[in-house]
């Protein structure tokens, strides 16, 4: 009997659950059930993060997506449960659009994954190459905070490709944040019922006050 590779076993388990949940989201017609299947899928992705030793990312996934976004989603559905939203039927046009966008994304991801030379049987040499060329998210994250660490690289600075005074993406990042805030306020404003409070009060008064008990005045 061969030794069981627990990592592979749990990776396959979580990956299957994640993909199964995703398929169930697409196949389901009830929006609350969709939310539940999405919870299953996203929790399985969190499990993958835990399996990879990225505890913080896994907990973040659970907190932001499962505990935050999806709770708000179900909350919103419960508030508006008596509408056309409860059961969604996907039209052929939507299927086509979704397939196009999803297929394009899958193609990009597949190409990237297959492009990693150390995974296509290149062996030790390829693994060392990828170690040298390895890119992490750190430069990007620092770039969003306004620091370009690649401008500190003396070799690149000497060639003139990366001048030292190059700035990060702080301004763009801030503009996007403010833009999101504006969108949020705009959505809240549009969703608000635009009715005068005095009109509402008058209507309520008219609906609740008893009809005039006096008989109509007799004519002359």
């Amino acid at each position, binding site marked *: *009997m*061969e*030794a*069981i590779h*627990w990592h592979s076993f749990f990776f396959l388990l979580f990956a299957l659950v994640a993909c199964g949940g995703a398929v169930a989201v697409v196949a389901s017609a*009830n929006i*609350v*059930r969709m939310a*539940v299947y999405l*919870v299953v899928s996203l929790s399985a992705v969190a499990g993958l993060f835990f399996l990879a030793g990225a*505890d*913080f990312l*896994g*907990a*973040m996934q*659970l*907190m932001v997506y*499962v*505990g*935050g976004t*999806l*709770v*708000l989603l*179900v*909350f919103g*559905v*419960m*508030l508006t*449960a008596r509408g056309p939203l409860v059961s969604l039927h996907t039209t052929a046009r939507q299927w086509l659009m979704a397939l196009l966008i999803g297929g394009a994304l899958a193609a990009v991801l597949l190409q990237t994954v297959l492009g990693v030379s150390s995974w296509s049987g290149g062996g030790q040499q390829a693994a060392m190459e990828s170690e040298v060329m390895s890119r992490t998210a750190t430069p990007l994250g620092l770039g969003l905070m306004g620091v370009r660490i690649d401008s500190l690289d003396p070799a690149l600075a000497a060639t003139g490709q990366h001048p030292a005074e190059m700035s990060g993406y702080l301004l763009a990042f801030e503009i996007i944040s403010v833009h999101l805030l504006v969108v949020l306020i705009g959505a809240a404003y549009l969703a608000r019922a635009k009715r005068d409070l005095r009109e509402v009060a008058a209507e309520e008064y008219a609906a609740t006050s008893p009809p005039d008990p006096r008989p109509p005045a007799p004519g002359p």
Partner: protein
Amino acid sequence: MNAGIADFLIWITKLSPPWQWTAYTVAALIEVVLLLTIVMLSVAVFIWMERKVAARIQDRLGPTRVGGRFGWLQSPADGLKLLCKEDIIPAGADRLLFRLAPYVSFAAAFSVFLAIPMASGWVAARLDTAVFFVLAVAGLEVFGVLLGGYSSGSKWSLYGAMREAAQVVSYEIPLGMCVVVPVLLAGTMDLVAIGDAQAGWANRWFLLHDPFTFATFWIYITCATAGVNRAPFDLPEAESELVAGFMTEYSGFRWSIFMMAEYTAMFVVAALAAILFLGGWNGPVPVARLLGLVPGPATRPYLALAMTGAANLLGLANLLVKVYVGVMFMMWLRWTLPRLRIDQVMTTCLKYCVPLASIMLAGVMLWMFFFPGGLCGWVFSWVRM
């Protein structure tokens, strides 16, 4: 202790495959069974305690007959009764989600124990970000309640679930801010390290570090009580207005799983309060150190293992006493204070808890900057001058 576990893991890897497989499974089962035992026994005791505390506060005796004295077999009797009840699913319910909901709640409440240390180093999985993991997973309990309330097909359940969502999502904000304070003081999110940072006499507890942490502790208690839907914040159940809130349509064993989730969540927040503010497994007096249970470099390995084991048993007792006192405090609150209205609940959270928690956070930062030795260190240095 940790050295012993490491030796054991190395020993496991040297076994032949089938035995290795068995050994891993047994090792995992031992941890799960230990945790289940502690949690489930505590839940049974909590339910009995709730009856007794409620009775005493209302000038009654509570259960006295089941099991002879004090009614100590009341919880098993309740469990048997619930098992024998009819399991009803309403006609208008979403059957799949209705069945799923109690398990989601309980699984979320129980999974938290994966990262909660019961004594220094006695933890199922030691995570660097244990505090964050605990908050994230404990926050998933609301999802079970939401599903239960929605899938019941009853307006009472729906109202209860909506109140739950509004309440829990709001109270997570001040709760998170309160939890950041001990993380700041200890400089880590590892619960084991946070507990160990408070080793020594009671003045080392983060509760007594400075006035701001003292106030933060009470804000934490308020938010935690609201987070686990206990009175005076039990609006999702609100039996005087909503029959039983989100649990209205549940009966028998499914209902009892929701109750188990509630009492497990109480254990979680009480244990978190104990570890973050009340020294965790360190008692007010460092008994283990005074008894000489700290192994030195010259101690023989097996003796050192026994000594840490004994010290950790004392620590476990310490932690459990603190958890039980915390849960008792929540019961005392429940039977003393009247239930708030929903707008009062939201006002308490957004107008009082959030600003106060922010002020306390800033205050603790300033205190750490100006008086790094904490309150007692500051007083001592002042006395010496």
